[in-house]
């Protein structure tokens, strides 16, 4: 789809979120709460006693952003199926070994998971939703994401070499 049209759609979804829920979009909270849930299953006392996850109680998945993340998955699934863009694959440059690409994805994932908690949101909650409200911190976050990204891009470019 034309990126501007997709952007307008995304903007309308975001606007709907603000006008209906009274809060913006969010994805990383759902991921973090899944983490809290996993820890609860493994070791409930320790999790409930921990200072961060402990605040979410014994049912961390009972949270609107968990449902939103599930929605994102299903929305993505519906759209991918309709557009024929669902193929099980490891996306990478042809000269890059899948193991290397997956290792990058894993380390990047760990960093993203950690950073999202530190900044209290990710590209959805801060960069997109916060910037929409013209919040100083969210716009700073957005700028810093690109600063961090461009500073690192050169060193990890190998994974996209064809």
């Amino acid at each position, binding site marked *: *789809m*034309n*990126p501007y*049209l*997709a952007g*307008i759609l995304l903007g*309308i*979804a975001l606007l709907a979120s*603000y*006008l209906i*829920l*009274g*809060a913006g979009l969010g994805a*990383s909270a759902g*991921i*973090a709460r899944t*983490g*809290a849930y996993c820890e609860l299953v493994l070791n409930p*006392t320790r999790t409930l006693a*921990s*200072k961060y996850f*402990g605040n*979410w109680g014994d049912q961390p998945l009972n949270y609107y952003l968990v449902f939103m993340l*599930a929605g*994102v998955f299903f*929305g*993505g699934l*519906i*759209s*991918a199926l309709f557009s024929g*863009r669902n193929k099980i*694959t*490891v*996306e990478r440059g042809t000269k890059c070994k899948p193991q290397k*690409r*997956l290792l990058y*994805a*894993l*380390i*990047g*994932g*760990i*960093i*993203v998971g950690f*950073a*999202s908690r*530190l*900044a*209290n949101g990710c590209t959805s909650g801060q960069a997109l939703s916060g910037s929409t*409200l*013209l*919040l*100083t*911190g969210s716009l*700073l976050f957005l700028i810093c994401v690109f600063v*961090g990204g*461009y*500073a*690192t891009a050169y060193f990890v*470019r190998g994974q996209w070499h064809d």
Partner: protein
Amino acid sequence: MISTFFQNGALDTPAAFFASLLIGIAFGVALEQAGFGSSRRLSGIFYFQDMAVMKVMFTAVIVAMLGITYAKAFGWVNAENIYFLPTLYVAQIAGGLLFGIGFVMSGWCPGTGAVGLASGKIDALVFLVGAIGGSMLYNEFYPLLAPITQHDSGVLFVYNSLNISEAVFAFLFTLIAIGCFFGAEAIEKKRNGKSNRREISFLKIFSAFLLPAAFGLFALAEPLKTASQAPSAPSTEEQKEIKILKGIQLGSDHFEPQELADRLLLGDPGIVLVDIRTPSEFAVFHIRSAINVQVADLPTALNTYKNKGLVVLYSNGMTHPAQARDSLARLGFQNAYFLTDGLQGFLDTCLKPASLRSEPVSSAFAAKINAWRAFFLNSKSAVRKTENFSKKTGALNLSMLHLPGLVKTDWLNKNLRTTGLKIIDLRNQPEYSAGHIPGALSLNKESLRGVVQNVPSSLLPATILAEQFSLMGIHTDDFVVIVSTDTLQDATLVGMAFERLKHRRYAILDGGFPKWQSENRPLDTILPTVKITSYPVPKQPESFTVTAKEVLAAMDKPGSILLDVRPADYFTGKKRDEARGGHIPGAINRPYPEDTLIQQDFRLFKPISMLTAAYSELIPTKETPVIVHCRTGHQASQTYFVLVRLLGYKNVKWYDAGWTEWASRPELPVE
């Protein structure tokens, strides 16, 4: 004005979950259609290959921003029905930089990762697993990182930070976006050798819509500004801003230390004094009666005081409280002030001994200084006055909202050996010795209550309770599970002892010992060894109890609810154990056994849905002030537990002395 789930405090309801799911689906479809189910496309922006990320994100931000700004200008939304994220400079800058590194390495961010997974990308699955791990890692490091995440600067808007009007910024922002879009097209043209004609013609039309839309904000903002002079003008962001700026110029957002000292000395119940420094600073010294709230928690913590009484913020200096005050003012608090010259100013102006001052002090003022010093520096004198006063300023039990009130036998069985878990068995000694849950500590509930100021069966003061728990080897951060038999009020009474010590990590074993036993779970006859601890007595006065005087005051207040939980015959006066029968005028009877039921021989609390339904008929909102009482405080502790720990009522107080005291004091009215 529209009504949002956030504004109604209903984001945790099934309806909100369903709405979130639908919005999430729209979000997911938009991301996938944008082509963000591909990590290659997402990383493209970092190599100037594919600028789609910038085009889509910036378009979405501009569209939603214009939408929100118009909605605000028309008065459909305001700061009350939308959640604004506070600005945390250090955390957001550090988090953003790290996030960028992770983003470019993995090629995914959380939302697009979910779409990537839906598109069959294995790298997206690995990314999501990593992100879950990263969240867990953050949880582990949180105690170290907490300081940077707690010192936030409140809700800050970039146009305020830059000192320009919202309309000007929105217009400039739109111009920048359009500039970036054409720049992105130019970059792509350079890369690919040819331009995407269809995209560019769409962009031209799109820009032609955006520009007038952004320009229209000036037209809307202008009349509102002039209208704000008139008293009947509608409430808008701009108007609030003007008010805030005017207040700053006139200094009417300050609160003078001398006035504060006088009002506190007189026990003015209308003042909510808030210390926004760190808990450790607060523990060392704070102005008497102050409550400690971190800036991030201010809007929630102070919500009940919005435009009621005077909210006075202070810190060491003036910058932080001034910013916090402005954020509160933006959220509609017209009663927020900050202390002139901060804590240091207060100490210098009011508490510095007259003899140490460089300028001469009149004898009247010297007497005042002495009175202030006696009140604010001497912990013994005037204690009663402050105690009563701080009870009125209300409870701020935020952390307990997320704790489970009940734990299941199965859960306890799995966690028996966990450190930091303490089990308290309330049965009698012979039964305890014959077999108890492994590791359970024995406690006789009667050792927690006694005659206090000649009121029998009162919960003992914190000093004695702390001593008791020290002897049991309990630490402040222990998670305590209370085990009783079918008298659930025994467990809740012990809960009140923990409340008095501000120990919120306690829960009750659902079904108690009988259920544990019937399930043939492990029992033990060995006495657990206990290492005596030194449980600290809380420094802040408690706020969950009320005295007869406060009950009397609440009787006249419309909107507050008095719940008498004694059996109906006692409520009507048909039966009585005291000098007078009947009930406190205006009280509602909700006998405590109605909150429990017997199921398979165990006494359990009724399901939350039943309790919610029953209490929503008696108490209008979760914020309504409620006082619960019975005869001695024992049964009422159960209702307190149900309301606060199971149902999340926020403003419940326990009248411990109850009917025993009320009936025996002839000056108190009886119905």
